[in-house]
């Protein structure tokens, strides 16, 4: 992957071609080894994957563009995994790429056809209402919301790929500009540009090519289920269900995980997802956070990369970047932010603000060091 940043001088092609070339080089793959390409992005326009792949003369194979908002990159990985699991192909390239600087700042453009978007819904408002309700129902405070950002920035300071690489304090987070009460600017992920690429292959191809890597132990993709009436915004069913299915597929439990990259688009999300991923009982996520159980040296390191809050969140790229982080961690290549003896990793991204749904999409992957 490339460092996430405001790469104003790079197009979608300029962002994605270097990590694509590097991924093929690192895997020792020739173009002829690749059976299919899956590319996650939301704002790249028509044929983004093909525009990228033609630059290295990679063509004549199934190549698919996937928009699933913030889950696009991980959805692309899921499609690759599925095609391999079904025995349809042996080797796939998965690209996640997004260029948000094209919008010149502000909140993510959502579908103007959505009835809540017509009423002024934006992503910070979704999470802010989740936060308001969570603070109302539990012992959590705005200081806890700020503490999530402090932890993220502490991790991000160790990651040369992160947009935000300085540490911060609870006071500084609370004093930053109000975005959507109770969320301040520093409780919101920064928008930027990025690209990440992974190669996925069958056991057979891995043996033939004599490569090392990590094992995909679970790959789950869910859409949201509509609720026309009451919905508990502190219990996003889409993540609960996806995680439950992923643990069953991998044959492990939450307590077995060494690291997690979860979808902390806004700081409240991290607390809600501790519970949804089974790390804590409802309302008890703050105990883990306050006790340092989710940072280095704790029970499970959550977002060692700095997460979306520190690393940045180029929508379609994030899901693949999480997997790159898991790969580096499980292969002992994460440098200053290495999680000791990491064996099991989980990655999680949700996607989209859509009226009536928690989220439009949710992807959960579990990886095992081999």
């Amino acid at each position, binding site marked *: *992957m*490339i*460092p996430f940043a405001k*790469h*104003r*001088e*790079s*197009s979608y*092609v*300029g*962002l994605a*071609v*270097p*990590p694509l*070339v*590097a991924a*093929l080089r690192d895997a020792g793959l020739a*173009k002829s080894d690749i059976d299919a390409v899956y590319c996650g992005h939301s704002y790249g326009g028509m044929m983004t994957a093909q525009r990228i792949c*033609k*630059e*290295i*003369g990679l063509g004549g194979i199934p190549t698919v563009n996937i928009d699933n908002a913030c889950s696009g990159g991980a959805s692309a990985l899921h499609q690759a995994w599925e095609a391999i699991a079904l025995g349809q192909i042996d080797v796939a390239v998965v690209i996640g790429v997004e260029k948000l600087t094209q919008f010149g700042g502000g909140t993510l453009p959502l579908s103007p056809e959505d009835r809540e978007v017509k009423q002024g819904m934006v992503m910070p408002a979704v999470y802010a209402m989740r936060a308001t309700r969570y603070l109302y129902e539990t012992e959590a405070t705005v200081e806890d919301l700020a503490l999530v950002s402090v932890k993220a920035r502490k991790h991000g300071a160790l990651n*040369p*790929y992160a947009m935000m690489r300085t540490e911060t304090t609870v006071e500084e987070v609370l004093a930053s500009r109000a975005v959507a009460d109770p969320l301040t600017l520093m409780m919101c992920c920064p928008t930027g*540009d990025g*690209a990440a690429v992974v190669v996925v292959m069958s056991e057979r191809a891995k043996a033939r090519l004599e490569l090392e890597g990590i094992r995909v132990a679970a790959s789950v993709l869910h859409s949201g289920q509509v609720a026309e009436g009451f919905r508990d915004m502190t219990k996003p069913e889409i993540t609960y269900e996806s995680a439950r299915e992923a643990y069953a597929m991998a044959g492990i439990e939450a307590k077995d995980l060494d690291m997690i990259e979860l979808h902390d688009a806004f700081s409240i999300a991290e607390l809600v997802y501790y519970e949804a991923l089974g790390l804590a009982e409802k309302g008890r996520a703050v105990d883990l956070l306050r006790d340092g159980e989710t940072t280095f040296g704790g029970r499970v390191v959550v977002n060692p990369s700095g997460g979306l809050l520190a690393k940045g969140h180029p929508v379609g790229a994030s899901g693949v970047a999480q997997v790159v982080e898991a790969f*580096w961690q499980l292969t002992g*290549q*994460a*440098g200053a932010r290495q999680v000791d003896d990491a064996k099991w990793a989980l990655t999680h991204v949700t996607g989209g603000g859509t009226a009536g749904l928690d989220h439009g999409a949710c992807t959960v992957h579990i990886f095992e060091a081999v």
Partner: protein
Amino acid sequence: MTSPSARVSDSVEMVVPDADLRDGSMIRDFSHGTRLVGTRCIDCGGSALGERSVCSTCVSRNVQVIPLATTGKLYSFTVLHVGNGGESRPLGYVDLDDGVRVLSTLRAGSHALRPEVRVELASDGDEWWFAVMPAAVENER
């Protein structure tokens, strides 16, 4: 267009994006005049339109910017009557003498456009186009 890379752990070399939007102009002043910008691969000799960071034939990053040929022949064309503020505009594919194909606005002057006519690059500031070569028209007669 590529930037230096840095090592971030013992085994991971940082990959940086290509600043491919930095200079979006397709023409540039080379020592022998204004030319379309192309890229040639030093490893395999493949050439392409525009400044590239990687060869689309052999995936080598060992590439260099070159000036492309100024003459070629028209492969096909159309006169476009949509967009461009309602003003019609001839547009065609030119196969340059060095083998690279380029989409270009065309200026036929008093000559009729048709496939296979010889055309030549012309420019005025940032604007560039291919014009039908009068000599070629004479030869065709």
